[in-house]
Every structure is written in C-alpha cells, then in structure tokens.
C-alpha cells in the first residue's frame, strides 16, 4: 500500500486544506498589523533598505499570525459556542487544537528570530513581548477574567507600529507611542459596538464582556467616554511630528463623525436599537474600521510627502 492510497481508516472528508491553516493566522487581523506596522516603519525618521523593510513587515505579520493561531488554540472551547467564530478551522473540526499550538509556537519563534536578524535584536525582543502579551496576558489570563478584557486586548493590537518604528530606528521615541495610543483607545468603542449587536455570542460563551457584566446601558456610556478621549488624542497627535495639515483635516472630520455616532449610541435604548436591528451600532462599527484605516493612511501620506517638503509641519 502506498502512503498516498485512500482507505477507510485514513479518510477524513473534512481534512484541512492549505487555506484552513492560513485561516488560523487570522488574515484580517494580520492585514491591520501589516498596515499599522508599515506606517510605523515609514514614519520613522530613518531610511530603511526596501528589502529589509519588506522583511520587517513580513515577520511582524507572521508574528501577529502566530499569535492568532495560539489564540485559536486556547479559545477553541468558546469559539465553538459563538456564532461568529463557529466556522473557524478548530471548531469546524478541520484542525486539531494541538496542531494550531505547534504552528503558532513554530511561527512565533521563526518570526522573532528572523525579525531580530533582519533588523535589530530590540525589534525581535519587542515582537516576542507582543506575542507574549497577546497570548498569555490577554488570551489566557485577562480575557475571561475581567470586563476590561477589550481594553487590554487593544494594547496587544496596538504594538505593531511601535515594532515597525523600532525595526527602522533600533530605538524608542514618543511618536510610535502616539500611534499605539490611537489603536489602543480605538479598540474599546470598536469592539463594544460589535458586542452590542452580536449580543448572544459573548453571553453564551461566558466571556465577561462589559455588556454582560455591567449591562448594555453602561456599555453605551463607555463607548461615548472612550470616543471622547480618543478624539482628543487623535486630533492632538495631529500637532506632533507624525501629524500635519492632511492628517489634521482627516482627523477632525472623522472624529466629528465618530463622536456623533457614539453620542447617538449613548442616547438610544434597547427598544429603539431592536426596532431597526441595531442600525446605528452597525454603522458606528463600520465607521470605526474606516476611522483607523484613514488615520494611519494620513500618517503614512504625511511621512511619504515629508522628504519633498510637503508633509508634516
């Protein structure tokens, strides 16, 4: 019998394909990691060899993907319960949890070592810390322990521009931390809006989402407070070295729209939301995606124009 033959004992109709393993890396989250890390790298005041820059972004993305695989390994039990995550490769029965763990650990090691070699050891270490923070501090510890889980998870997702900056400069500065703060403050309103209209998911999974522990009214107020703080920070960053006139215009417009959305969410009651199937919450969530993309896009444009004497202040 050749190893390629099919018999009843080895046949699994739901055997994973290459795409299923790729899905373990959470490609959509990875795209955000790639984009924000790229902005951090380009905004840094040090020219980077394009090949080195490409490798830096690639290995940061692989590190982010590895965190995703480890997250899916650990959270397989709650992913089975939630409608939104039920189709993921582990709950769908295509990939064993152990396989995801091995893939996540192997890719983490590869990404950290290769980023360190391609750029500088500090960047590699910072990527290792980010993976540790997301997998151990957030996924294993605080996600199921505190209703502030989203705030902490937001920190993990906010590190990529800092890593990109360190990869370019080998040093720390205030500017990448402004980019960090932007994603950090953006994450809670973004996810709480999602939690408002994906209501049963987090309840069923027993994840202590703010909507579950403190109620939906408190969540609505929290969205407004965080959006207000975010607006101050985002517009304020426009006057720093990563900002400029283009960024400032983009930021003022987006924050006005975002604040309006948060205000409307805070004024609504459950009956109003139910009656239009959470239209305001859904549109706020969609706007939040655009919000982050355009803010980082504006920082990127300012950085790209700077050598021509056009970007920045």
């Amino acid at each position, binding site marked *: 019998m050749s190893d*390629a033959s099919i018999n009843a004992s080895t046949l699994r109709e739901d055997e*994973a*394909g290459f795409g299923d393993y790729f899905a373990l890396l959470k490609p959509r989250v990875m795209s955000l990691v790639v984009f924000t890390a790229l902005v951090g790298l380009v905004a840094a005041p040090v020219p980077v*060899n394009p090949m*080195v820059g490409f*490798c830096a972004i690639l290995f940061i993305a692989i590190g982010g993907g590895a965190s995703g695989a480890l997250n899916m390994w650990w959270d397989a039990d709650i992913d089975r319960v939630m409608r939104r995550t039920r189709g993921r490769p582990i709950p769908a029965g295509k990939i064993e949890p152990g396989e995801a763990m091995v893939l996540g650990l192997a890719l983490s090691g590869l990404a950290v070592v290769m980023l360190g*070699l391609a750029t500088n050891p500090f960047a590699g270490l910072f990527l290792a810390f980010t993976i540790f923070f997301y997998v151990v501090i957030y996924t294993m510890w605080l996600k199921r322990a505190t209703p502030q889980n989203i705030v902490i998870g937001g920190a993990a997702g906010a590190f990529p521009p800092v890593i990109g900056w360190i990869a370019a400069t080998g040093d720390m500065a205030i500017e990448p931390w402004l980019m960090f703060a932007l994603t950090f403050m953006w994450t809670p309103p973004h996810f709480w809006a999602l939690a408002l209209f994906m209501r049963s998911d987090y309840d069923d999974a027993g994840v202590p989402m703010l909507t579950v522990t403190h109620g939906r009214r408190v969540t609505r107020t929290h969205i407004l407070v965080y959006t207000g703080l975010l607006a101050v920070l985002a517009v304020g960053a426009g006057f720093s070295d990563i900002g400029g006139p283009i960024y400032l215009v983009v930021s003022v417009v987006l924050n006005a729209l975002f604040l309006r959305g948060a205000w409307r969410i805070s004024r609504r009651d459950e009956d109003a939301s139910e009656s239009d199937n959470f239209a305001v919450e859904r549109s706020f969530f969609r706007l939040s995606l655009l919000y982050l993309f355009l803010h980082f896009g504006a920082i990127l444009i300012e950085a790209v124009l700077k050598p021509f004497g056009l970007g920045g202040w």
Partner: protein
Amino acid sequence: MSFKTTHELHKRRFGRNLGVGLVLAGFVAIVFGLTIAKVTSGDFQMKKSTVSGAKN
C-alpha cells in the same frame, strides 16, 4: 495494477503540499534577498580596527 480515479482528498492534499512547498521556496528566496541586501549595504563589513588587528 488498477488505475484508480483521483479522490478529492488527493487533490486537497496536493494543494496543501504545494502550498507548503511554495512557502518554503518563498522563505529561501527571502533569506537570499535579505542576505544580498545586507551584504551590499555594508551590514556585514568588518570594522577597520578588527581587520588591522587580525593582520598583526
């Protein structure tokens, strides 16, 4: 010897093997490209003091 029709599973496994092969080939190309970039930008150049020290 009988000729069996290709099972759907064979196709899926081929896709997986092809994917892994391409990823590995890509990784080799990236390491090669990175090495060229590092060498040509002088990252691996020895310091003058080290070179003269070795001569003594």
